[in-house]
């Protein structure tokens, strides 16, 4: 094996084993930051030894043995050798003697993994820190990979992670799955982090790269892992369903020039049927588990309506409108209401949609949101109120930050003007 081939192979093992390794160590050390450091030590040892010795038969157990040994050595050597540390060292030794390496294979490590997810997504941390820590500890991404994915400088990510680990350590955040009333809120933080990673990949918030599908794959992987760890939580399956179905359209969402292609204009034959099938299965799972769907489940159900329609004309807009109404009920937001307006317009005509969209113009939250005038412009144009439609498209064009979208909106404004005033000289050419 060449050194670089060996390096790539070790990277692959790391991707598979690191989360379980860190989780197991964190249970013993009761500190996520320390756990990660010793896991890294074990990785360094693997990089030194495996290119010569080859990858061991059970690389996960090998890494765990090394990491534990390093942990004991280091804790013993530490100058601030408080009694507490000595005690910890002894405990660790017992742990090795008892050889809970076997635990790597059984359920115990799954519990540790779940604890690790909850700690990484702890509400003490900022959203950015939760995202970075989750990708690093659970996703097995390097700091450099995270920096590249989020278009930030590597030292910033490194600092963010160091600070997050310190915050957790200083606050003595217990390494546990929250219980009782706390569980629902904490789980929703976990789901939010995973979906943030997904949406960051799906519609990049900055830069030219409209989509970074690798982040979508990372988020999907995390979601699928979580669905196995807490199989009875309907919203987890709802989130996985939503991500699988949205990911099924990745190939068709941009044209060769990187310009977005809207859902109804996408080439449906190229939607990924494997992901759609998986998404529909997860949605069915969420529906079986809960009496009613939560916000992610409802969004997944909406996405499923599109996925099931072989042509845009077959879309069940009535059902989509009903699902948006349920979503507005569960998680009220002006953006959801605007989407409901679009669905109602498709189901019951532009006037019915406009009746829902119009009151939204009074909401300060949407004052600078380009999609509101864009939707209203579309509905007004369909009602042949071209003058008003043109004004709305122009407003939307002024608000959007996306140059391509602005061009499209101004095009529609010009089109409305041309219909309304067909004989003005500039349109004769």
């Amino acid at each position: 094996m060449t050194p670089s081939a060996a390096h790539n192979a070790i990277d692959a093992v790391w991707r598979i084993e690191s989360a379980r390794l860190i989780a197991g160590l964190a249970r013993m050390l009761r500190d996520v930051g320390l756990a990660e450091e010793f896991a890294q030590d074990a990785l360094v040892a693997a990089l030194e030894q495996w290119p010569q010795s080859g990858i061991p038969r059970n690389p996960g157990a090998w890494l765990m043995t090394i990491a534990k040994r390093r942990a004991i050595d280091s804790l013993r050597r530490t100058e601030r050798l408080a009694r507490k540390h000595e005690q910890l060292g002894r405990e660790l030794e017992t742990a090795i003697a008892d050889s809970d390496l076997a635990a790597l294979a059984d359920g115990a490590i799954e519990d540790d993994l779940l604890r690790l997810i909850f700690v990484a997504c702890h509400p003490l941390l900022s959203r950015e820190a939760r995202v970075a820590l989750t990708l690093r500890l659970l996703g097995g991404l390097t700091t450099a990979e995270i920096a590249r994915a989020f278009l930030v400088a590597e030292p910033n990510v490194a600092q963010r992670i160091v600070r997050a680990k310190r915050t957790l350590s200083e606050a003595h955040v217990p390494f546990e799955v929250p219980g009782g009333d706390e569980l629902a809120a904490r789980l929703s933080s976990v789901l939010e982090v995973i979906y943030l990673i997904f949406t960051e990949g799906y519609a990049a918030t900055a830069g030219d790269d409209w989509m970074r599908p690798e982040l979508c794959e990372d988020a999907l992987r995390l979601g699928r892992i979580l669905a196995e760890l807490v199989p009875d939580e309907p919203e987890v399956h709802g989130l996985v369903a939503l991500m699988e179905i949205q990911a099924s359209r990745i190939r068709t969402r941009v044209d060769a020039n990187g310009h977005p292609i809207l859902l109804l204009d996408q080439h449906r034959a190229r939607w990924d049927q494997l992901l759609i099938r998986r998404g529909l299965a997860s949605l069915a799972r969420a529906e079986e588990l809960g009496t009613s769907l939560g916000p992610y489940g409802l969004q997944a159900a909406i996405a499923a309506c599109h996925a099931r329609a072989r042509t845009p004309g077959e879309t069940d807009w009535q059902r989509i409108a009903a699902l948006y109404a349920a979503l507005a009920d569960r998680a009220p937001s002006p953006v959801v209401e605007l989407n409901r307006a679009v669905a109602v317009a498709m189901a019951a005509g532009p006037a019915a949609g406009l009746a829902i969209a119009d009151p939204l113009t009074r909401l300060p939250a949407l004052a600078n949101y380009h999609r509101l005038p864009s939707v209203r412009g579309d509905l007004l144009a369909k009602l042949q109120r071209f003058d008003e439609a043109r004004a709305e498209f122009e407003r939307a064009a002024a608000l959007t930050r996306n140059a391509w979208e602005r061009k499209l909106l101004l095009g529609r404004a010009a089109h409305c003007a041309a219909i309304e005033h067909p004989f003005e000289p500039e349109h004769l050419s």
Partner: protein
Amino acid sequence: MRFMLLVKATQKSEAGILPEPSAFEAMRTFNESMVKAGVMLDADGLASSSKGARVSFAGGKPTVTDGPFTETTELVAGYWIISVKSKEEAIEWASRAPFDDDAVVEVRKFFEADDFPADAFAPGVHEQLFGPEWEAREKAMHEESQRRA
């Protein structure tokens, strides 16, 4: 990126001999480990080639040969589809499959948008793949078969 791990047939699988219960159990554990790791997208197994057939196109004309076929390592007995970060990760998963000594697993990558020239998915490509040209070829093939019948 997405890989297919193709499990090649063995003399046993071709003879229709089912694995021992312990081997089944090991396979179940292995499958579960890939599901738990969030990488497994799909998997299935295929019956022996005696239940299938081969359609070859020597001279551009489909010729059917019924199974079974002899070259077992050229036959596929099952597959996994996994979503991983690298070829090495796909290989690492394949290496963990609980097989004995005559098994072969082929690791193959799916095409991705990046594997095509930049303009492959330009507007209009659908027409190239599924549009008039394709329809014309379909029509020609249809006419040809009518003429022969």
